[in-house]
């Protein structure tokens, strides 16, 4: 089963997603794998990561770090056999990493502090940009599909980044569009889509 959880910042969606996966796997001897996508750039992200680690500590999750190339973790997942359930958090980081990471620091290995997105120069033309965005969207979808085939229950946390009217640079608009497309396609694939509003789950789609 694939579950997609969306919501705004500070909406309680992570906690909801963790509890959901724990609940789904409660009576089964499954390994719970947490796929962390947030790259630790600095103090603030590190603090956020610490907060999430604290929240997960007692829930029995094992953490795999994966900043890009989601499908690369399937090998690792297979080692746990079929009895594995996965929480991927979150798509917004994965999309930005895929779009903005320099090619030199891909995969799930450790990155140094200079590998951040801030250094990225984007001088390519519009067509390249569209191509790149499509590639990223397809890649993430393929990755999610591959994880879905390897694991029992998969809960994916994403982020509603498009419900606002601020004008951003073309690069950021490109990111927003990629997020929109990924979210739509993940929702199509998902068995259940839930929006979390201040800790309250609102059902968007369910084929369960």
């Amino acid at each position: 089963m694939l579950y997609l959880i969306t919501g705004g910042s500070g909406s309680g969606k992570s906690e909801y997603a963790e509890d959901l996966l724990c609940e789904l796997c409660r009576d089964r001897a499954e390994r719970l794998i947490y796929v962390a996508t947030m790259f630790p750039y600095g103090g603030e992200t590190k603090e956020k990561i610490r907060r999430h680690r604290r929240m997960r500590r007692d829930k029995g999750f094992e953490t795999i770090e994966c900043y890009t190339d989601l499908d690369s973790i399937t090998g690792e997942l297979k080692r746990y056999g079929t009895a594995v359930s996965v929480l991927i958090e979150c798509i917004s980081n994965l999309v930005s990493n895929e779009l903005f990471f320099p090619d030199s620091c891909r995969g799930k290995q450790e990155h140094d502090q200079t590998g951040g997105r801030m250094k990225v120069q984007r001088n390519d033309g519009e067509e390249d940009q569209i191509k790149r965005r499509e590639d990223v969207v397809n890649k993430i979808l393929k990755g999610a599909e591959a994880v879905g085939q390897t694991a029992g229950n998969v809960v994916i946390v994403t982020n509603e980044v498009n419900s606002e009217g601020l004008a951003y640079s073309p690069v950021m608009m490109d990111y927003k569009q990629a997020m929109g497309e990924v979210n739509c396609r993940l929702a199509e694939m998902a068995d259940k889509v839930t929006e979390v509003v201040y800790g309250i789950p609102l059902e968007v789609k369910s084929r369960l």
Partner: protein
Amino acid sequence: MIIGGAFQGKLRYARSMYPKITWADGKVCPYEEIKTCEGIFHLEAYIRRVMQEEEARPYLEMLNGLAGINPRIVVVSDEVGYGLVPADPFERRYRETAGRICTRLAADAERVDRVVCGIGTVIKKEEAPFEEMMPEEIVLPEERMPEEMMPEEIVLPEEIEKRSFEIITEELGDISLVPGTESVVKRCIHTSADFEYARNLVFSEQAVEKIHNAIRDGASIVTDTQMGKAGINKKKLGQYGGKVYCFMSDEDVAKEAKRRGVTRAAVSMEKAAGLHEKLIFAVGNAPTALIRLYELIREENFKPEAVIGVPVGFVNVVQSKERILTLEDIPYIVARGRKGGSNIAACICNALLYTL
């Protein structure tokens, strides 16, 4: 708790849901007011303020425990978490903090409504225990069995109404009703089995006496639904010379309403005002009827004998009734809040007729 995007009509929605409470504005209110106020709007602005000012920091920490400090408070807040993560560090922290606080408040709230384009959806509602669902002042005698367990009473047909009123009087217990209004209040409860009418009916000074006099003088009653008209005891009213009018189905009213793009209810009030008779208005359905009536009184010097304003519903209902409550020279009976209906309008008329 009421949440939603900015400019979605949250406050208007909140005010119509909780018409009786007073509100603090999170943008400007003193920090400590949040501990005692009945309602606060712009909580998101309050959070921003307490984050920005060093000396207000204790209030920021207090917010997570607000449900313990001010358990009856109604909180209205913008949802601020959507969109890209802000580049500015303070904005980032603010957005996250506001989200966490609202998540906590939503967890503690009995009820959460989310407003989109002025339309509210209840996204959380805790079932209140039975006792709490009763109007506050009314406590069931402890020895009373649950009704479904009681053996059915054997009551003669003509005795049923009498017995009903006895039960109502018994269950009202110590609630004190304004002398002279008892028959109206009890008949509303009798019609609806809803004891809230013991609290929400508002009578202008000596309204019952004044309406009695008007009926004795041969005043007629105007309703805003055929249903209301059907429910009024016309025989009794006729003894004093009055009639019941309802112009809602009149062709000229329909045409005029269509031509001007207003409701038939509003036009039917105008048609009634043009009769130049002594009239009592009994509005149980259309807030637009009540609003037009109010305008006719205020702006065109129309002087009905009385207004019974008890429309039921969710849109403009509360506001329309509040307007009638501002009238000074016109006797009125108004059911504050959302409750009412054509049956209630008719039953108030009958209660008045039966006590003549």
